[in-house]
């Protein structure tokens, strides 16, 4: 009833090319933004802000990056966390060694450094495809792990390789309260999400998807394969680098190299799969899901099993559930939560009629 396109005619290409061509979608998005930027920081508790929303948004940025690389460009990568790590350590070192450098510039530079590393590890992608490429990206993962632990310069000679991020200040305003951290991360996430969406609907995104779907044909049309893949690696790593920097500065405050290990890469991969490969919304849905689901599972298990469990058993059962959930998603809806949302919207358009 409400979600009807009747009477909405798009008479210009401008109108048709919009991200949200349907008026109701635009309204919904505007409302969402108002809630996110105004209502939540005022109403949400500090716990929700710092322990749920901030990590969710930070990881969503990394998920956006992986989505660009694997979802749009079809280059399978297991090294996501390595690029986050590069971003975190780069941001730390820039703040440490360049006095007076503005915070946002640090983040951008950290992203660029990560992009550079991404380009290097993306070079093999011209010759190597599929699983071989995935295994090659593992090389990045392990190497970066080792580098930041062993080479003391990166962590300013800290014995364990752990770094403590400097406090954040933008234009004289300290970003210390949970609400401010949240708003900072939210803004960056929104900007990067918009950029990703724009890229996906212009020539770059089409080139990525062409390379993903049939690279031989893409080459024949004139799309430069190596450049397209490298741009994907670069931009994706930029996003991961910014995410890593935010993880260090806006979320935890300290970073040990293990924070960006293979488990983290898998976590982000699952976000993208469960959220929906090849969609911007999927990155956010997947991130929310991956962070909320363990809490939910915890709560359910506590309800079912009243007695005191052997310590660790809970996390092991969680592991089983997660694994089973991944398989269920792959079988039932391989295009993830974003696709489920799309189907819901299509049903809404018809509601209350069945078809």
């Amino acid at each position: 009833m409400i979600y009807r396109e009747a009477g909405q005619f798009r008479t210009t290409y401008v109108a048709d090319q919009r991200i949200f061509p349907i008026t109701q979608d635009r309204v919904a998005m505007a409302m969402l933004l108002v809630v996110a930027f105004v209502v939540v920081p005022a109403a949400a508790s500090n716990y929700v802000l710092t322990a749920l929303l901030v990590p969710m948004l930070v990881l969503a940025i990394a998920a956006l990056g992986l989505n660009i690389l694997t979802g749009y460009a079809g280059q399978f990568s297991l090294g996501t966390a390595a690029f986050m790590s590069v971003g975190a350590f780069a941001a730390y070192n820039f703040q440490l060694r360049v006095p007076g450098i503005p915070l946002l510039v640090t983040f951008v530079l950290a992203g660029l450094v990560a992009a550079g590393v991404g380009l290097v590890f993306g070079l093999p992608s011209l010759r190597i495809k599929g699983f071989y490429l995935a295994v090659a990206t593992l090389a990045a993962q392990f190497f970066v792990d080792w580098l930041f632990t062993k080479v003391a310069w990166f962590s300013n000679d800290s014995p364990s390789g752990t770094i403590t991020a400097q406090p954040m200040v933008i234009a004289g305003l300290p970003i210390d309260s949970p609400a401010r951290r949240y708003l900072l991360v939210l803004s960056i996430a929104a900007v990067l999400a918009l950029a990703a969406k724009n890229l996906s609907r212009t020539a770059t995104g089409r080139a990525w998807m062409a390379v993903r779907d049939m690279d031989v044909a893409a080459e024949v049309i004139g799309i430069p394969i190596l450049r397209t893949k490298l741009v994907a690696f670069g931009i994706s790593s930029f996003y991961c680098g910014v995410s890593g920097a935010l993880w260090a500065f806006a979320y935890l405050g300290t970073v040990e190299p293990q924070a960006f290990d293979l488990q983290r890469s898998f976590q982000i991969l699952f976000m993208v799969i469960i959220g929906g490969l090849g969609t911007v919304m999927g990155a956010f849905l997947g991130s929310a899901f991956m962070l909320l689901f363990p809490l939910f599972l915890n709560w359910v298990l506590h309800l079912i099993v009243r007695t005191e469990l052997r310590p660790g058993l809970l996390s092991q059962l969680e592991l089983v559930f997660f694994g089973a959930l991944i398989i269920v998603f792959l079988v039932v809806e391989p295009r993830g939560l974003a696709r489920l949302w799309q189907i819901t919207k299509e049903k809404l358009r018809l509601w209350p009629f069945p078809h």
Partner: protein
Amino acid sequence: MQGKVPGPVLLEVRGVSLSFGGVHALREVDFHVSEGEVCAIIGPNGAGKSSLLNVINGVYAPGAGTITYAGQTRRAMHPHAAAAQGIARTFQNIALFKGMSVLDNVMTGRALKMRRGVLWQALYWGPAEKEELEHRGRAEKIIDFLQIEHVRRTPVGRLAYGLQKRVELARALAAEPRLLLLDEPMAGMNIEEKQDMCRFILDANDELGVTVVLIEHDMAVVMDIADRVVVLDYGRKIADGTPAEVRANPEVIAAYLGVPTEADERAVAGAG
């Protein structure tokens, strides 16, 4: 089509040979195509027709011989360079990007014409938006031309085979090519669809001034739309001329159209 005055030579294939291991796909093939012509390449299966197209647009490099296109002679060419010089093609087994919509597929055909860099596109404002809209307009013209507006947002993988072939043609035309290479554009279509495709190809040739080289098995189609026919058999060219000339050529008849047996002759005599 008769009565066309041939323009200057656009494509010249000279002495091209191509082999894969022990298989000789092409043996010293010579022919030329004039600008504005529709040239059909026919021949039995395995005669080397697709390989010839692949050599022309640079997917394969011939072992011997040269290709002269738009005045430039070379042996090998990167497919990317071929595309940049205005050669577009379609493929025997549809090479569309199955995950993208029809509109997006056609837009990829304009990939070489889009200039604005990544950062502008991420911003999608000002120059980038202008460029995107301009190319959208051009793509829509082609979509109109080939009458696929009704499926422009449908993911290509979901379309019927005949429509997919049309989308592939649209993608090729979107690049505004000088030379269009079509590999069996009507394979698997019924009579109606074939007639539509013939019309589109002729219109493209007439209105858009595209030179067409197409591989085709249906002799009726070839007779109808081709200005010139080149016949290949086992990698060698065995005839070259107007459709009427080729049809009367005894070698072609023997190789391709079949030598009449006694039973055939009796049947023809009986029916006449």
